[in-house]
């Protein structure tokens, strides 16, 4: 199960990692988007919990409202917990005309979840994204920055998922 975001604990270990990310970005507040993306990658559920947003706001320093403006504006950032392996389905026209509906159906079927829910073990979520620039591999999914495609049979989808078990 995914823990409630309000119960997220900011450990010393994570603080060190965040400090390192801030150092890499020269504590430059204009790099907030890059900072948030890197921090999100460090958190197993790939999101920005409230305490973390507060911590970054204090450390940079930057107004909390600016941080939340970014988190809610940009699709790549999330304020809600996701799976450890968020499956992003490309929903661009190039993927749609190559039957990404099938892919979506196969994923829902194999995982037993819909959009916005997480598998019971906290491993997967299914998300639609506009386009991640892999139209030559349509229909494609992207899991933790790696693009997989073209995925045309249920068997291919199953063996892809098995890599993460």
């Amino acid at each position, binding site marked *: 199960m995914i823990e409630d975001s309000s119960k997220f604990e900011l450990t010393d270990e994570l603080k060190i990692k965040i400090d390192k990310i801030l150092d890499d970005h020269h504590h*430059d*507040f*204009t*790099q*907030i*988007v*890059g900072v*948030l*993306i890197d921090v999100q990658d460090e958190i197993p559920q790939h999101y920005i919990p409230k305490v973390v947003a507060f911590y970054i706001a204090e450390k940079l320093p*930057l107004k909390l409202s*600016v941080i939340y*403006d*970014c988190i809610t*504006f*940009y*699709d*790549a*950032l999330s304020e809600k917990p996701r799976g450890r392996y968020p499956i992003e389905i490309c*929903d*661009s*026209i*190039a993927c*749609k*005309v*190559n039957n990404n509906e099938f892919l979506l159906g196969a994923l829902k079927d194999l995982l037993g979840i819909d959009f916005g829910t997480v598998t019971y073990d906290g491993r997967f979520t299914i998300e639609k*994204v*506009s*386009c*991640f*620039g*892999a*139209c*030559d*591999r*349509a229909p494609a999914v*992207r899991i933790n*920055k*790696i693009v997989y495609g073209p995925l045309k049979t249920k068997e291919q989808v199953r063996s892809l998922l098995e890599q993460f078990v």
Partner: protein
Amino acid sequence: MQNISYLTENFGKYDVFSIDSYINIGGFQSLRKAVTMDGDDIATILSDAKIKGRGGAEYPMGRKWSQARAVKRPHHCVVCNADEGETCTFKDRELITNDSFNLIEAMIIAGWAVNAEDGYIYMRAEYSHLRPRILNAIKQAEDRGFLGKNILGTNWNYKIHLYSGAGAYVCGEGTALIRSIEGKAGRPRMKPPFMKQSGLFTRPTCINNVESLSLVPHLLRDSTPYLQVGTKESTGTKLVSVGGNVNKPGVYEIAFGTTVREIIYGLAGGIQGNRKIRLIQFGGASGKISDARILDIPYSYEAFAANNLIIGSGSVLVIDERTSVIDFLRYTQDFFLHESCGQCTPCREGNRHIRIFLEKIKNGTYTDEDIQTMKTFAKVMPMSSLCGLGETAQNALKSAFNIFPEVFASRKQTEAVG
């Protein structure tokens, strides 16, 4: 059909993680040449090659550079737009993957030409796996004195910074892009002030697409092969990203003047299952559409303009008969509805309402009045929207009115159900 590789000449020729292997194939020769030249002369070379911005706006690049030079305010900067978000466009990904040092060299030449102090590369988050090769290229160029202080003994200082986007299509628009680099949400703003006067951090800014920039070192090295191909108005070569229902989707370099048929049936291997073409969209989601009637026109700016099409970002999205026109329009509309930043009313509400009308057409529950209203909205949106997104969002729909009038055929008001 002749194979051409001018812009893609370096692909696979060197190790993209090693500056030495890039120098061995003649890398940074163009920069050495550039620093002996005046910026206006460099801009003239671009004007002679008739390069139009390759991101989609098609603004003449030579003119852009000489205008940027002419701005007297201090602290110029150069921005490379690597946020290609147009559907079915992935040429910049190939350029960064296979030729990242060339891009860095181009950024330095651009900096020299417009007398900039800083260069910024804004790359979409979806390409974050390419960050290491750009950062490595910047680092190695710094170590060799191509970047940093007193570059090649010219007393000129220049740095390149890499910024990441976060999955917003609208950030490909210049003013939204600079806001994103400034560490804000990427909402576009009104122009003027124009970028060249007051852009990033209110500094004079010159924004170029990855493909436009990547051409510069090649042109400085030897522009003859480029000038020899193409058509009268469209000189040289272009990268096209072909996708959709074709057998071999991918990025291909073509000489301007190649016919659309050669691109789709020659390079991209024809249509899956030998089906018929329903429609072709050029220039990404904001581009215009046509059907098989344009297969034999040459791929060039002038021929496309004559046929009410645009080259735009250079994408060719081919859709076969399995997808209906109305479904295609609904998908496009979904995309813009999702990507509209919601700041200005015409774009936010226009996209939403046109989506509803399209749904009605799909279900057969529309009235003639709906069609009229939809046409009015499609006309008003480009006139009244704040930025390029709202201005171009209805390009596909507007060209569909001409090409596929039967989809919007009139019907009796009384038949309406809801």
